[in-house]
């Protein structure tokens, strides 16, 4: 896959982040950006005809295992960040009764 296509995924995430009014949609946009970064890294060591980096008899051409090992870290951290953000969304809903950015910011007790 072309690296430019992975950056298009990141751009879709940026667009959603800047246009969405809902807090939960913003969290989803961050997840989409993260998926784009993961695809870019997995794309780096990949090539046509390479097998998975598990050594057995007859395996001579493997894809690069280093980006895959790094991306495990990214996936774990991304899931924890998503969990933390969603818990903050629940707190916002309990406190203000809505999850829309504009409604929360238009409240009098919120200093933007």
């Amino acid at each position, binding site marked *: 896959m072309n690296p*430019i296509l992975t950056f298009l995924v990141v751009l879709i995430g940026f667009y959603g982040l800047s246009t969405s009014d809902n807090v939960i949609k913003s969290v989803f946009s961050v997840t989409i950006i993260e998926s784009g970064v993961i695809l870019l890294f997995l794309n780096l060591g990949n090539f046509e005809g390479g097998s998975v980096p*598990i050594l057995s008899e007859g395996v001579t051409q493997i894809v690069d295992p280093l980006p895959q090992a790094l991306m495990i870290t990214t996936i774990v951290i991304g899931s924890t960040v998503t969990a933390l953000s969603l818990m903050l969304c629940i707190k916002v809903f309990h406190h203000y009764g809505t999850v829309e950015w504009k409604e929360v910011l238009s409240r009098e007790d919120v200093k933007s």
Partner: protein
Amino acid sequence: MSRQIVLILLLGALFAVFTMSIIELEGLYNAFGKEYFLEYGQSDTGSNNLVTAILLDYRLFDSLFEAGILLIAVSGVIWISKHDIEEKNARFMIDKFKTPDLFITFSRLVYPLMLAFGFYVIINGHLSPGGGFQGGTIVATAILILYYIDADKETNIGLIVTVEKIVYLLIIVLASVSIVTRGTFFTNFFPLDATQDTKAIYLVLLNVLIGFKVALGLWTIFTAFLKEGR
């Protein structure tokens, strides 16, 4: 409308910058690391799966902090949600009478299979795709199904987090044993010329500990979410 046009123009500018810099990306990448791992990875670490070899031996320092970040996130989730649980005396979100009977029956059938598959993925982390993080997630998902089977199940979050901290300390201790036997931090504690099967003992031990820790951490996270009620 004009704001959207400005936004699309800005995103287009970002795209142009990336497209210009992507030409150098292919030149920056080289395959020397891959060739090294292909030639020495199996004899150095005793792992057929090279991703596990990097994760648990070459770059164990990274993995330790990766597990630590999960612990920190669990603490954050509990700290944020703590006050609501005590104030509202919240019940679980899952209503026993609204969950279909078919779903409950199939959950009972699938639950042991998912647990067994999770343990398989954890223990065979050095031979096949998988490892501690992935297998731990599968085990945690199996425990999530348990809530559908028994909706009134009580979970003691404090106990789970305490066990998780102890397991994290055990991981650090197991990773540091190599300072005594080999003289370097954070690598396999068997000598470098040991056989592959001997070295695999260390990998299985560390995989099991990491899988245990990840499963407990994710279990805590979604118990905290369920207890938020609503």
